[in-house]
């Protein structure tokens, strides 16, 4: 016996599933906009992971000890892995990996603006782990409950690995802060340069973030940009105090519940976003060169595979 249920449209079934906090899987029907939004977001995320290898990779050969060097190699390798999990997730939506890379290389898809800043001292590696990976974790933990199954699963793997990234950064920062006066100055200088760009990682303020509402309705986004940014500030200010460092924000104040930061200078963000940050061209040039330099390896592997088929 089957009860008579009024037929639901695919759109309704899709939204029912989201509203029931159930997951969408690759071969389910989904609105075009949902698919497009996810492909763009996952690809941009994947690009950020692999471009993100560059600022820190810059210090591998100059790490101050063998211990710091193996840690840094492992971290940078993890970021490559994160990129691969995410390209894999994008492919479940019908995106083509080569095409995504091509979009990155030709500037048609973006990556996080944070990676367009230079790493001028060893303390920057420490600050990146502590602040940049710290901000990434705030953004990524809610994504482990994102409505799209493959993205959520990839983020679960990523988040497990990120916590080592943040802790090693904080530990390296602590070592500098307990070191000589010069080392402490290096640490403060790194915090001065990375603090604001880290806050900008959460994206525009809520009143200037037009796509957020739709992403929330689709269960892709769970918290607003400003909510996540506030959590990051609340978590990080006491850590800076513990290190004996000064957060470079004269307006920063405690309101009894939260640390309230001063206004963000979005014009700087826009400049870096447009491609005119300190390292935009260098990052992309390096990425394209690495891809082209690796072409002969891919060709040789393909020829070998053909021969043994």
């Amino acid at each position, binding site marked *: 016996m089957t009860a008579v249920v009024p037929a639901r449209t695919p759109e309704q079934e899709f939204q029912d599933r989201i509203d029931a906090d159930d997951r969408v899987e690759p071969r389910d029907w989904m609105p075009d906009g949902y698919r497009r939004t996810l492909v763009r977001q996952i690809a941009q995320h994947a690009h950020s992971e692999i471009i993100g290898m560059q600022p820190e990779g810059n210090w591998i050969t100059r790490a101050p000890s063998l211990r710091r060097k193996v840690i840094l190699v492992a971290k940078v390798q*993890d970021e490559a892995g994160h990129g691969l*999990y995410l390209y894999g997730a994008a492919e479940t939506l019908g995106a083509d990996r080569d095409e995504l890379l091509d979009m990155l290389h030709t500037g048609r898809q973006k990556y996080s603006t944070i990676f367009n800043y230079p790493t001028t001292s060893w303390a920057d590696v420490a600050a990146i782990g502590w602040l940049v990976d710290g901000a990434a974790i705030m953004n990524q933990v809610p994504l482990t409950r994102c409505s799209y199954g493959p993205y959520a699963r990839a983020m679960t793997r990523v988040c497990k690995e990120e916590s080592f990234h943040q802790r090693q950064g904080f530990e390296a920062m602590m070592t500098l802060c307990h070191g000589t006066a010069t080392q402490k100055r290096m640490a403060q200088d790194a915090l001065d340069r990375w603090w604001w760009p880290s806050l900008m990682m959460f994206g525009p303020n809520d009143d200037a973030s037009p796509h957020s509402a739709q992403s929330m309705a689709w269960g892709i986004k769970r918290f607003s940009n400003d909510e996540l940014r506030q959590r990051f500030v609340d978590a990080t200010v006491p850590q800076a105090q513990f290190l004996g460092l000064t957060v470079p924000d004269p307006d920063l104040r405690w309101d009894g519940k939260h640390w309230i930061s001063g206004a963000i200078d979005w014009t700087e963000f826009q400049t870096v976003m447009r491609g005119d940050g300190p390292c935009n061209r260098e990052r992309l040039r390096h990425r394209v060169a690495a891809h082209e330099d690796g072409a002969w390896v891919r060709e040789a592997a393909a020829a070998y595979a053909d021969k043994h088929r």
Partner: protein
Amino acid sequence: MSQPLWEVFVRSRRGLSHTHVGSLRAPDAHMALRHARDVYTRRQEGVSIWVVPAAEVVASSPDEKDAFFDPAGDKPYRHPTFYTVPDEVQHL
């Protein structure tokens, strides 16, 4: 030239089945295994890996939800909870 897509399955420890963990691109099976080790088991997450060409996977239904699974829906008598047993009867 696009490399074939492979689905990766990892046995996390002896006594457990292989579980799907994700996918990757590689020119052949041998390279797929090597990449799978580097991408999915950097922290000893596995003791054994399978890689399967994604094109060879045969799946049950395009939208993963249709009449295919319905026949099992109205057969509660296949579950032990369907049966009433008095409290005083033990070991059932």
